[in-house]
């Protein structure tokens, strides 16, 4: 059964010379790091830097080509998650691994029921979980189905589950991505408790401020290798960012003052239901004017996706109106294709799931949604040479690297994919641009470029709606901020007047003055 701290010597976790290669690319190269007991260790790096691969190796999802893993100074072989759990390693994934119809107790005992008869094991588990919850400040309703819990509480169930399996080393992968600022603060409180109880916590994140707030040490990865290791209080956000990117970071985004023009998109009393008939968006009304960026903030899953879908014409609203340049779209049943023709462009939230076709080349992806435009076609035939040529042009203008139109889209980094999608959506000279999670899965270098590009488009008179779960991004980009919670817009504030605290309260559903 699990190995505890039980008086063993050595650091909680030590990695020696871990190597992992996919094809000719090193995902991890000569990784050695030490995580001490009773510490929170940050692991940061851009997308594709190899953080996830490394953690997957530690947790047994993948096996390393070379190298050693030592737990409490003892070499262990981790071929599968079961072995990792037995060695006292627990992992909280970004996407929770919980059975939604089960309670916290049932989820915790899943796989470790302890005997054929469930009742005895459940009773034991209940006592043990209550004890753990008290010890670490992880209060959750133990007997409520997980589906009824908030995201923050589900995350606590995941942590409890790991502790119940006697994890002494806890890996958290981007744990705050789905949390409100308030929930994130509470999580950090829990992590501090875990630290003081002697647990080792590895925090994988790309948010530098979290690293500064909670970790004791921080390891920086770039291109599969460790490029720096710091004692957190002896370093700075700037220094870490520079290490991550391998170059100095530009200053804050510069924006000329906003000069909003005519209303381009007007949404009134919109209601959207999902496939099960559950209302996901209710009573949403707002205007989007030429020359402004409106930021839609909110915790993931509060109706932003459905709102975007309805605006783009992919979902049919159950109530309300959307008018684009004065033309009503909902009652007239104007679909995505016609909306594009009317000047509505859409950079979707889920790039790989919706914005590109994974098996297609960059050039083929660069016409998605525009493939029947006259300049790409001659009768039913596609003008392949023109398509390829225009893709090369787009790649040059939008700094897509490598500038290889025939390369499969999945061979490009997330940032370069996103730049190509943005280039494509700008192609039809739209008047309104919907952008979902503009920099999700995009490396820092590309984030700057995409942000500058969006501001330039705003200044060129486009009306832009940016939906993002990254509050910093909203604060940096938007001229006006709307906050969504539970499918409704619960707050609106101009850029200069926005405070993170107020936005956080709105995101959490705590109503302040809001808007009328």
């Amino acid at each position, binding site marked *: 059964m699990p190995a505890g701290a039980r008086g063993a010597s050595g650091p909680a976790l030590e990695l020696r010379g871990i190597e992992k290669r996919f094809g000719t690319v090193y995902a991890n190269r000569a990784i050695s790091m030490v995580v001490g007991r009773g510490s929170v260790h940050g692991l940061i790096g851009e997308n594709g830097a190899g953080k996830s691969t490394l953690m997957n190796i530690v947790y047994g999802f993948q096996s390393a080509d070379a190298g050693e893993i030592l737990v409490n100074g003892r070499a262990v072989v981790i071929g599968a998650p079961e072995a990792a759990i037995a060695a006292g390693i627990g992992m909280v994934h970004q996407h929770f691994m919980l059975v939604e119809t089960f309670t916290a107790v049932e989820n915790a005992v899943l796989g470790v029921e302890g005997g054929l008869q469930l009742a005895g094991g459940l009773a034991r588990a209940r006592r043990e979980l209550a004890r753990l919850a008290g010890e670490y400040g992880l209060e959750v309703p133990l007997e409520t189905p997980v589906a009824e819990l908030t995201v923050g509480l589900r995350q606590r169930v995941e942590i409890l589950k790991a502790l119940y399996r006697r994890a002494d080393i806890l890996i958290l992968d981007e744990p705050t991505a789905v949390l409100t600022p308030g929930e994130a603060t509470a999580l950090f409180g829990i992590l501090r408790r875990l630290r003081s109880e002697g647990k080792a916590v590895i925090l994988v994140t790309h948010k530098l401020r979290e690293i500064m707030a909670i970790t004791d040490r921080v390891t920086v990865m770039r291109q599969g290798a460790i490029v720096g290791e710091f004692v957190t209080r002896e370093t700075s956000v700037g220094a870490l960012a520079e290490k991550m990117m391998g170059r100095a970071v530009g200053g804050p985004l510069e924006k000329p003052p906003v000069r909003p023009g005519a209303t381009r998109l007007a949404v009134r009393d919109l209601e959207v239901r999902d496939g099960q008939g559950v209302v996901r968006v209710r009573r949403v009304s707002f205007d989007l004017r030429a020359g402004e960026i409106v930021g839609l903030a909110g915790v993931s899953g509060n109706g932003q996706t459905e709102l975007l879908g309805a605006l783009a014409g992919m979902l049919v609203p159950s109530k309300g109106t959307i008018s684009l340049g004065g033309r009503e779209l909902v009652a007239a049943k104007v679909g995505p294709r016609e909306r594009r023709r009317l000047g509505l462009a859409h950079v979707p939230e889920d790039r790989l799931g919706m914005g590109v*076709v994974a*098996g297609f080349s960059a050039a083929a992806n660069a016409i998605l949604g525009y*493939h029947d435009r006259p300049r790409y076609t001659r009768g*039913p035939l596609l003008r392949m040479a023109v398509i390829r040529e225009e893709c090369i042009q787009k790649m040059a203008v939008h700094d897509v690297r490598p500038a290889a139109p025939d390369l499969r889209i999945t061979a490009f980094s997330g940032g370069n994919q996103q730049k190509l999608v943005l280039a494509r959506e700008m192609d039809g000279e739209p008047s309104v641009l919907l952008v979902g999670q503009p920099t999700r899965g995009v490396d820092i270098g590309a984030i700057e470029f995409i942000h500058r590009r969006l501001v330039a488009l705003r200044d060129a008179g486009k009306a832009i709606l940016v939906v993002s779960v990254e509050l910093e991004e909203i604060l940096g980009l938007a001229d006006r901020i709307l906050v969504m919670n539970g499918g409704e817009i619960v707050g609106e504030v101009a850029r200069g007047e926005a405070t993170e605290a107020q936005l956080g309260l709105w995101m959490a559903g705590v109503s302040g003055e809001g808007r009328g």
Partner: protein
Amino acid sequence: MSRPAALPRWAEWGLLPLINLGVALALAGGVVAVLGESPWVAVKLLVAGAFGSQEGIGYTLYYATNFIFTGLAVAVAYQAGLFNIGVEGQAYVGGLGVGLVALGWGEAHPLLVLPLAMLAGALGGAAWAWLPAWLQARRGSHIVITTIMFNFLASALVTYLLVNVLIKPGQQSPETREFGPGAMMPAMHEVLGAGGIAFAASPWNIAFGLALMAAVAVWVLIWRTRWGYAWRVAGENPTAAVYAGIAPARVIIGSMVISGALAGGLGLNELLGSQHRILIDFPGGAGFVGIAVALMGRNHPAGIIAAAVLFGGLYQGGAQLSFDLPRINRDMVVVIQGLVILICGALGDIFHAPLLAMLHLGGRVRRSATG
């Protein structure tokens, strides 16, 4: 990982199918050995029977013509993300159309009858595919289920017509009378003979050329037109298709109608080229072999032609095998063909991962040699 990592093209298109074929033949050889025959002799007989004589080649290509049409039919639907199991039934109904034209206008000039028969075959197949497509697009009935059912419906329909309506008066066997001279697809040995090239007689006819033209047309359609583009988007990523404003219903109906029309091509080869009458079960399972052909040919027209010739060879060589080796009867030949379908078609990707690993091993060796 949902999608296997990509192999280099030469491995994906050349090496992998060859490995599959090799394994299938080795297994078949095992079966032959168990029966007490020499696998080596059996393979030699099989290959010689299929490719060793002009007559053998003629028969091989005649069978291959059916498989090209049905393989293309399966591939077109597959590119749009649809699994058309109903090619057999579509070929049956399409062939009925071909046959009806041949019966009705068989005395007219071939240049009139043959285009008309082609049109009727395409329309019949397309109609039989359109119904399940419409049911999927409008009512959400799953196309795999409905096309399977439509195979049975086609079989019942043609049997009924043959037994009760089209049967040649005064005979027991449910067949129509022979087509008129205008409704004969010219045989290849006659065409070649007219050009001064002597070739042994076989049912190989100019429908083979039509099949090759259909393959080129399918390539253009799928990879060079905006319709094919829309179908491929819908096939690869249905969500992206909706995002791009591609209507799923139009993709389903459009691709299935073309798929069915291609299936109708089988009647040209089988009825006008060889049987010269409509008879019970003339598709003979070619619609199902088409699934294996499309899978093995990676749903690409060039691959489909190669796979169709291979399967044509298996049919022809297999017949030769059962003729020459008494211990290997027709059923054993079906087993051998089944093994090839199983390994090359259904389990076509089974050696993907090992091959990928092997090629990367090669990469490591190369790197350490240079570094």
